[in-house]
């Protein structure tokens, strides 16, 4: 079960630079930690985070094991037109989550 928390304004003026924040539940297991049996817990991380505005990619971030568990990302985008901002996370073990928020740009 995945859980995502997105913070984005619901409205914006055309040309306004808005801040977008996304938080997702994920262990981000580094692949370097030994478990209770002394053996290394296998790596399980989110490898890529992307954000698109009405289908146009506005951010692509390649993550490493150095990103904290339950990864948080904050970035900016120019409000161009109304529509959907889509966030996508993909990674190990077939992890693929997509969440969208609607935005009204006047």
């Amino acid at each position, binding site marked *: 079960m995945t859980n995502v928390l997105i913070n984005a304004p619901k409205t914006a003026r055309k040309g306004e*630079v808005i801040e977008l924040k996304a938080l997702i539940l994920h262990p981000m297991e580094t692949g*370097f930690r030994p478990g209770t049996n002394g053996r290394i817990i296998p790596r399980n991380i989110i490898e890529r985070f992307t954000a698109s505005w009405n289908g146009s990619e506005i951010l692509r971030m390649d993550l*490493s094991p150095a990103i904290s568990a339950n*990864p948080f990302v904050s970035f900016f985008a120019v409000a161009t037109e109304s529509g959907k901002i889509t966030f996508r996370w993909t990674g190990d073990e077939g992890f693929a989550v997509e969440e969208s928020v609607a935005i009204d740009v006047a």
Partner: protein
Amino acid sequence: MPGTTKRGTTRRTFIAGATLVSVLPFAPAHATPEAMAAAIKEVVGDNAIREGRVTLDVPPLIENGNAVPLTVSVESPMSEADHVKAIHVFNEKNPQPHVFDARLGPRNGKAVIATRIKLGDSQKIVAIAETSKGEFFSASADVIVTLAACLEDLT
């Protein structure tokens, strides 16, 4: 004779050796400043890296290395002609030197990325910004990492 094995090594040397061997499997390979330099070179190539424009905001002291807040900001008009096209962050003492690579463009308006990172030890972080004009700018910061005193015993 007390304190020596058949081979003539003293018990002290044996215990020291045994301790070293028993510690090794639990100590994963660490990145080194050289590994970080190599990772940076992969991105920058032979281009010059200039100071300025990049601000790396990270607390100088963090109580737990599991979630260190980090913000990279780069001064840039973020226009079609002149914008930050990538931000790369590296570390020098985690098991591997990369932190993240972000691809940006004029649609971002501001070249700022904030996230939380893991630091396995007190160390230097380096942020490199790559512009659409092919220039590279960098900033670095040192972080001291302490750990909570009362930890969980997973066993």
